[in-house]
Structures are given as structure tokens and as C-alpha cells.
């Protein structure tokens, strides 16, 4: 130990060692804190070696991984019923039981009931669920609320984590979106080392879908810029096929997919300042903000007649039935679009990264989910829950989801698997989009959905002719500021 340490430092070091022994902190965190306190590498190594035998996480284990260690345990997972995740997991429950002996029971309501049921559980004295799937946009609300178990000790324990789990295969952007969180600094992602969730059961971002046949016939290349996108829309628009489409309805994806993608790829920055310094101010009256909405307004003559009522399903149906020449959309729709049983254009569809403004990089919003273990889950079942969690976020399960349902994976290996890519050529584009996607700035505060709803209402109003793009952005700006002030994020 450091000979020159002050009494406070000595107390801190002693607490740290105790924390390591009691599993309150993991080895990685111990090293970081020890370095901050000025311990030498030799001292750290010696302490770790001394603690290795005494750490409670290793108590009762031989240090080797036993896949059936928790056989006979029944677990419950609360997850989304809006996507295909619960179907994929439902298919594989018997396999999970065969390999681990764990019985997993699925509860899968749709999004709004899921959020409310999740919050009820997290705030209860004991959670009914040992595993909970949460939307990436809610990581701050749920993980930041301190409701989830820190997963580092489980991950770092070779007796608990399968040897082939390959944590580093999980896409970093997804880990930063739903996994890492610094509770003390209230900071999501980059820089944080405490792990509270594993990306799954699906992740994903936005890519560009276009009709290869129509573009080839017109002598066009897939759009790389928004000007090319509009030019293609003008040229390809006919009575039967709309030149382009987008989410024009008062729908979650109007703001997050169509507007936000155009906004950030033309140099827009959504928020200035930070909630912690109470200067978290929207930047919605900027030329990029108004310009992104104006792009959508300008596309109206070349879009489906009722595009202002088009949400997710209308666009998927429109594209799959050959009535739309191009659009940007969540890559997760590749499933129905590339399935010859549900799509008339399965063999005529191409994908690329989304277009961008001059000099800008292609990028879009990062979607996806995380799965965590509630702190208030039955303590006797937490290790079994981790076992199940590693199974449902394994390479094998990611590949199954991708192959059977074209659910966007959370692992690099699934996006780049040669056999999958040969079947689903869009996968590398989807993987690239996922890796380079943007965590929307407003998701770091609780009011994310409220802000998004305001934006969708005002932008939809602009699209139906109720106000100009500039007025819509100005109204949204003032409403956002009011919400942010009320929430204490803006002084």
C-alpha cells in the first residue's frame, strides 16, 4: 500500500478492497479507482492476487463454467410484444431449457403498457421479472434511475459467463446506447465503464431502400446526397409509383427517422449545452432544422397521395407492393421487404447507407433495446438470470433472430456472417448503419417521448399545410424549451 497515503486515502483503499471482496465492485473498477488513488501497479496486482481467493463471486464455484448450474430455475422476462423479438425467443425456449435447464416465461405487452409495467416492477419492493427488456431511448429513465443490477461482476466471472460469449463482438454503439451508464455522473455511454444492460434482443438504425429496377431503367444511381434523392423522386414519380416516401403521419418515426436523419446529415446539432449544467437548449430554429423539414415538404408532390397519414406499416406495405421508388427507413423492415412471400419487390430492392448533405457523413438515429436484471429481482435467481441473459444475447441467438425474422442483431458477427449475407445482402449496410448511428441527444432525459410527440404534431401540421416549416420549428422550439424548463434541464 502507498506509504504516503493520507488517512482518507487509506480508508478509501480499505473500502475498495472490502468492496472487491464483497463483490460490490469488480476487478476492472478496482483497478481504475486504485490508479486514481495513486496505488502502484505492483500494489494493485498484489491486492488482486490476494483477493482472488476471497471474492464472494468465486465462492462455491470451481471457476469453471457449468452450463447447467442453474437447471430447474424458473425465470420471467418482461419484453416488447411490438416487434418479433418475443417470437424469436418463444421459438428458442425449449433450446434454452435443453442447454441450461432454465425455464423462461415470456410476458410481452406492447410499448406503452410495457413501459408502465416495467416502471411498476422496478419501483416495487420485489420485481416479478428477473429480466427486463428496455428501449434504448429509456436507458436514462430506467438504468439512470438506478433500478438495474450492475453486470460487470457477472461478466468478469468465468464461472458465470460462457467461455464463448465474446462480449467484444457486441457492437460498441449499442453498448453505449443501452449498456454502459455512469450513475454518479448521470452519463450514458461513452466513457462509462459500469455495465447495466446487454444490447438485445434487437438493435438497428436507418438505411436507404431503393428500387434497383426503376433506378437502372432511369439511368440513376442510388442517391448519395439529398439533392440526388429529390432528383430521383422527381424523375421516378409516376401515376403508379411514388418517387419517394417518408413517415408523414403524426408518428414517432416522423421526427426520429425522416427529419432527424436529414437534420444530422446536413450538419444539424439537436441540442446545445447539457442537462446537468441546466443549459440544455434545443437548436430547432437553425437553418439545418428548418431545412430538414422543408426537404420533406418539398417531397410531397412526389410522395404517395396520403403520405401525411403514412406511418410505419403504410410505408412498409407501400414499398413491398411496389408503389414506392425509394425511402429511408429502419433497417428492421428488411425482413418483410426482402421476403418474397410478403413482397413484390424482394429481388428488386437495393440498400445503401442513408444519403447525406455535401461534405457530411452518412448517419442516422440509433434504435434498439437492452436487457437487464432488475436490482429488486429475487437475489437467489440473479445469477441464473445472467445465465439466461448471456444465452439470449449470444452469437447463436443473434444469428437465429437474423435468419428467421431478419431482426437486426446487436453483434458484428451476425451482420457479417457470410452465409447470412449471401441470403440477406442488406446486412452489411445495416451493420454499418448500426455501428455508426447516433444516440439522439434528447434520450438522455426523461422527457424524450414528450419532446418527440410535440415535434411530430407540429411537423405533421406543417406537412398537411397548417403552417410553414419555419413556423413548425419555431413552435416546437418554444414548446421544447417550456418542457425542458419544467424538467429542470434549462434555467
Amino acid at each position, binding site marked *: 500500500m502507498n506509504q504516503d497515503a493520507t488517512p482518507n486515502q487509506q480508508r478509501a483503499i480499505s473500502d475498495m478492497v472490502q468492496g472487491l471482496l464483497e463483490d460490490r465492485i469488480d476487478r476492472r473498477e478496482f483497478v481504475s479507482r486504485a490508479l486514481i488513488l495513486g496505488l502502484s501497479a505492483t500494489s494493485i496486482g498484489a491486492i488482486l492476487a490476494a483477493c482472488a481467493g476471497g471474492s464472494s463471486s468465486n465462492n462455491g464455484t470451481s471457476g469453471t463454467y457449468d452450463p447447467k448450474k442453474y437447471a430447474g430455475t424458473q425465470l420471467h422476462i418482461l419484453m416488447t410484444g411490438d416487434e418479433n423479438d418475443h417470437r424469436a425467443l418463444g421459438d428458442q425456449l425449449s433450446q434454452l431449457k435443453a442447454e441450461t435447464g432454465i425455464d423462461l416465461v415470456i410476458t410481452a405487452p406492447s410499448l406503452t403498457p410495457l413501459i408502465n409495467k416495467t416502471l411498476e416492477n422496478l419501483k416495487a419492493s420485489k420485481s416479478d421479472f428477473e429480466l427486463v427488456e428496455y428501449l434504448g431511448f429509456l436507458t436514462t*429513465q430506467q438504468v439512470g434511475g438506478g433500478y438495474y443490477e450492475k453486470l460487470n461482476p457477472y461478466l468478469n466471472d468465468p464461472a458465470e459467463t460462457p467461455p464463448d460469449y465474446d462480449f467484444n463482438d457486441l457492437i460498441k454503439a449499442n453498448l453505449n446506447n443501452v449498456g454502459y451508464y455512469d450513475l454518479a455522473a448521470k452519463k450514458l455511454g461513452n466513457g462509462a465503464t459500469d455495465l447495466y444492460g446487454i444490447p438485445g434482443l434487437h438493435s438497428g438504425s436507418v438505411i436507404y431502400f431503393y428500387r434497383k429496377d426503376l433506378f437502372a431503367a432511369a439511368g440513376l444511381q442510388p442517391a448519395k446526397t439529398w439533392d440526388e434523392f429529390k432528383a430521383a423522386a422527381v424523375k421516378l414519380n409516376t401515376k403508379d409509383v411514388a418517387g419517394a416516401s417518408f413517415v408523414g403521419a403524426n408518428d414517432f418515426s416522423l421526427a426520429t427517422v425522416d427529419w432527424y436523419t436529414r437534420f444530422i446529415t446536413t450538419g444539424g446539432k439537436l441540442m446545445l449545452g447539457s442537462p446537468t449544467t441546466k443549459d440544455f437548449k434545443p437548436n430547432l430554429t437553425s437553418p439545418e432544422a428548418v431545412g430538414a423539414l422543408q426537404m420533406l415538404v418539398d417531397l410531397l408532390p412526389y410522395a*404517395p*397521395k396520403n403520405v401525411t*397519414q403514412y406511418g410505419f406499416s403504410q410505408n412498409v406495405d407501400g414499398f413491398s407492393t411496389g408503389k414506392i421508388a425509394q425511402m429511408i427507413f429502419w433497417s428492421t423492415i428488411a425482413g418483410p421487404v426482402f421476403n418474397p412471400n410478403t413482397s413484390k419487390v424482394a429481388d428488386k430492392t437495393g440498400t445503401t447507407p442513408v444519403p447525406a448533405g455535401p461534405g457530411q457523413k452518412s448517419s442516422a438515429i440509433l434504435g434498439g433495446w437492452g436487457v437487464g436484471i432488475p436490482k429488486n429481482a429475487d437475489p437467489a435467481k440473479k445469477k441464473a438470470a445472467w445465465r439466461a441473459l448471456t444465452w439470449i444475447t449470444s452469437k447463436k441467438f443473434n444469428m437465429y433472430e437474423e435468419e428467421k425474422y431478419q431482426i437486426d442483431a446487436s453483434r458484428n458477427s451476425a451482420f457479417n456472417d457470410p452465409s447470412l449475407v449471401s441470403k440477406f445482402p442488406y446486412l452489411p449496410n445495416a451493420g454499418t448503419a448500426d455501428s455508426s448511428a447516433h444516440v439522439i441527444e434528447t434520450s438522455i432525459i426523461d422527457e424524450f417521448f414528450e419532446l418527440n410527440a410535440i415535434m411530430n404534431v407540429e411537423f405533421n*401540421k406543417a406537412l398537411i399545410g397548417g403552417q410553414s416549416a419555419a413556423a413548425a420549428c419555431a413552435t416546437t422550439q418554444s414548446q421544447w424549451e417550456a418542457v425542458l424548463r419544467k424538467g429542470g434541464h434549462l434555467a
Partner: protein
Amino acid sequence: MNGTLIERGSSRSSWAFGPSGRHRDTLLLLGPCVAYLIVFSVFPLLYSLRLSLTNLTGSSTSGQFVGLENYRDIFTDPHFWGAAGTTALMVGSSVAIALVLGTALALFFGLNLRGSSIVRAVITVPMLITPIVVGVMWRALLNPDWGIVNWAIGRVGLPAINWLGSTDTALKTLVMVDVWQWTPFVFVIVFARLQSLPVEIFEAAQVDGAHRLAQLRWITLPLLAPAIALAAIIRGIDAFRSFDLVYGLSYGGPARVTTTLSFLDYQSGFDFQRYGFAAAMAYVMVVILVIATTVLLRLVQVRREDAVQ
């Protein structure tokens, strides 16, 4: 009437069991009801009142006491006033139209034409359907791309209507669907009353030379007034609370033109997890409803002599 029944029951208990037996009887009879009310009405009401005075949100474990801040926020929120206006418009027009149509239907079926009993049964079907189903069903029927309504309109050479996508038509469409569903309710109440009207009054009017229109104006409608008033009050309360239809049909849009108070409250509570604010808004709605119902009851003045046959 009720008072008489209670008195009779009380005296019998007193005769059978004495004073202590009477108390036991009272407890036995009222106990379950009181317990039910405490558990399912009084406690939730008090709990939500407490909630309305806190700033409880999705991520906070327990809300802090903020006094009347939520109520102040509600009354300074332009969305609240917008939704209140929409609710007033929706309730007023929907109830008025349903009353006129329901009464007209009742009078028509009062003629007892051949086969009317079958048609009567069919007419009541909409009110048997769950409102959320009605909303989703009509959203599909009115779909601008493949909905059967615009298809039928197109077949007769008329232009397609943007039922739910335009700020000009969306609220009208909401009222139309609400009227479609609940006119049968008014019809059933008014028709039941119509069937029980004394024939002698109409015979006397005929003898006095009153023609059909005069009978309707001066005899039938006044005698139906209590039933129409009852239907108006029940329908008014129901329309004011209507949330599921809006949720299924228009989700409050476009541009919030169909956002009613109930829907706004749902959004605040369940979409945005502002539980304290939502509880306060629910309380404001209860107060509005109590005041409106009291005023309505005073206005319609269901007089005893009207109700006597």
C-alpha cells in the same frame, strides 16, 4: 320509495333481533358494500389526490410534494385549453345529434311497422361493440388508400374525402363515428319510454281534433322529456370521458384537433409518465363533470309531474 323499504326492513330487524341485532343486520347488509367502496373508490380517489400534489414521474421512485403546482401548470397549459375546447365541441355536437337521431328513430319505430323488431335489433348492434374496436374498425373503413367508404364514394362519382388526415374533417369524423355508435343507446331509452306512454292521452287528443304534429309537439315530446334528459346526461358523461374511441380512431391528431381531455390525460400519464400531472388533470376533469352534470340536471328539470304517466 327507498326510504320506505329501509324503514320496513329496519322495523322487521328490530322485531326479530332487538337493537344489537339491528346493528348486526345493518353491518351485514352495508359492510360488503362499504368495504367495496373503500377499496375500489375511496382509497384510489384519496391516493390519486395525494398523487396529484406530487411531481411523480417515470424515473422517480416517489414524487416530492409540490402543492398545487400541477393544477397551476394545467391551467396555464395551452394544450389543456385546446383539449377542453375540443371536448366541449365533441360532447355538445355528438350528444345533440345522437339525441335528435335517437328520438327520431324511436318515434319511427313507435309506428310499429312490419318487420321493425328485426331492424330494431340490428340498429342496436353498434352500441354493443367495444369503443376501441369501433375506433380501429372505422379507421380501416375510412383509410384513404384502401378504405371501403372512399371506394364507395368513388363508385358514385364523388371525390374521396380525407376523413382523418385533415384538420377540417377529423373532428367531424370523430363526432360522426361517436354518433354512429351511441345513437342506438338514445334510441333504446327513448323507445322504452315511448312504449310505456298511456294511450288514453293520445285518444283524448284525437277526440279534441289534434293532428299528428300537434300531438308530437304538445304531448309526445313533453312526455318523452325525462327519458331524453336521462339519455343526454348519461351520454354527456360518457362522451366527456371518451378516450378509447379517440385512441383507436385518430390518436388525437392531426395537429391535436381530436385531442380530448381524456386523451390528453392518458398521454400525460402513460405516454410521458407524468403521473402527478395526469392525476391532477383527472381531478380537474372530475370537477368539470360534477359541475356540468349538476347544471345540466337543473336545466332540464326532470319534474315529477313529467314523469307521472
